[in-house]
């Protein structure tokens, strides 16, 4: 995040109004997609964004929404930059963001992306707690869910399928 001057605070305020299209419980700032904003003295705005996944199809839509939202708030000149480094990680999700995910019915990543084997070949038997009933009597059905960032699990206790926001 950039040092918060009065100008960039207002910009962040606008950007916080944009939900992630695939995980609408979170806005694009708390998800960490907006890496930096800059307001130049002549009023031009630069926004640095980072993709969550290389092929995330929502990225283009998010970029359009950033431009539209800033235009609607009187910022006429907007430049978007894609930054790759450091790579986005779910470690950046705050506790409040994780709580919002859970309330929305998506299990939050419950561990940091710790060092594993260079080529991880076996899934851990880690059981993800069900966001509905909290039971750990769950089973991973697929590592790939409705979007690249989510896995599919099933809760044997409340018999609900649910999604997990994968740690990456």
């Amino acid at each position, binding site marked *: 995040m950039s040092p918060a001057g009065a100008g960039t605070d207002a910009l962040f305020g606008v950007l916080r109004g944009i939900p992630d299209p695939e995980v609408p419980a979170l806005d694009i700032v708390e998800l960490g997609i907006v890496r930096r904003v800059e307001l130049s003295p002549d009023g031009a705005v630069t926004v640095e964004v980072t*993709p969550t*996944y*290389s*092929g*995330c*199809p929502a990225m283009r839509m998010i970029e359009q929404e950033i431009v539209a939202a800033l235009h609607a708030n009187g910022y006429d000149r907007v430049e978007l930059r894609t*930054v*790759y*480094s*450091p*790579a*986005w*990680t779910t470690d950046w999700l705050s506790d409040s963001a994780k709580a919002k995910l859970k309330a929305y019915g998506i299990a939050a990543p419950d561990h940091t*992306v710790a060092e*594993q084997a*260079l*080529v*991880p*070949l*076996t*899934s851990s038997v880690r059981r993800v707690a069900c966001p509905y009933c909290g039971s750990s009597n769950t089973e991973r*059905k*697929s*590592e*790939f*869910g*409705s*979007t*690249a960032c989510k896995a*599919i699990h099933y809760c044997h206790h409340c018999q609900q399928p649910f999604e997990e926001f*994968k740690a*990456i």
Partner: protein
Amino acid sequence: MRPTDEDAGVPREALFEYLLRLGDDRLVLGHRLSEWCGHGPVLEEDIALSNVALDLIGQATHFLRLAGQVEGQGRDEDALAYFRDAIDYRNVNLVELPNGDYGRTIVRQFLFDAWSVLLLDGLQRATHTELAGIAAKAHKEARYHVRHSGEWVIRLGDGTEESHRRVQTAVDELWPYTGELFAADQVDRLLARVIAPEPAALEPVWREVVIDVLHRATLTPPAEGYMHSGGRQGRHTEHLGHLLAEMQILARSHPGAKW
């Protein structure tokens, strides 16, 4: 990004060529995997392969965009993907081979993923900041990919007599296409160490990982033998032309089309 600022003395042509290889491997394999969309053996696998395809095509987009910037001739990722012929493609032949059955697709994916995760691990420490950033992101995704494909190789190999037979056949037929992953030419030698890992340095770890999985899958690693080559220099199988024809027809028929 000004590539000349940080190319660590590597000639621009070599860096461009190398970025094409990274992009083309992933674009062609991503396109192949997307052929499963709507045809997966079970719904979860249909979704899984489509997601992996999306990741690979996304990675290709980033690598090819950077390639276009390094080349400096005004070609963007779309121009590089849609307006090059097979002879200008720099992917290994492994990724352009037809899918075959699900087992064959998974074996090809595993052989590639196990290599890709090692390559990207090395590339994320490249002196070229932007390339390293793209690789770091792709590396995280590749770790999910290899876990998925590796688990399926074990499940199918150690499955029924029928699945074991089919997957062993796939391993035997695809193995001769893996030599290209570790072959080095002048481009690799120019990039070695400062930007990219030396291809041959990845082979022992790859071999250990792959053979371990084959054993756990009750499969027999093939004996050493002939290895195909040429993809990196534009010599491809007859399959790539058909793939590109399908992938490129819209862009070539309606240049600049928007919808």
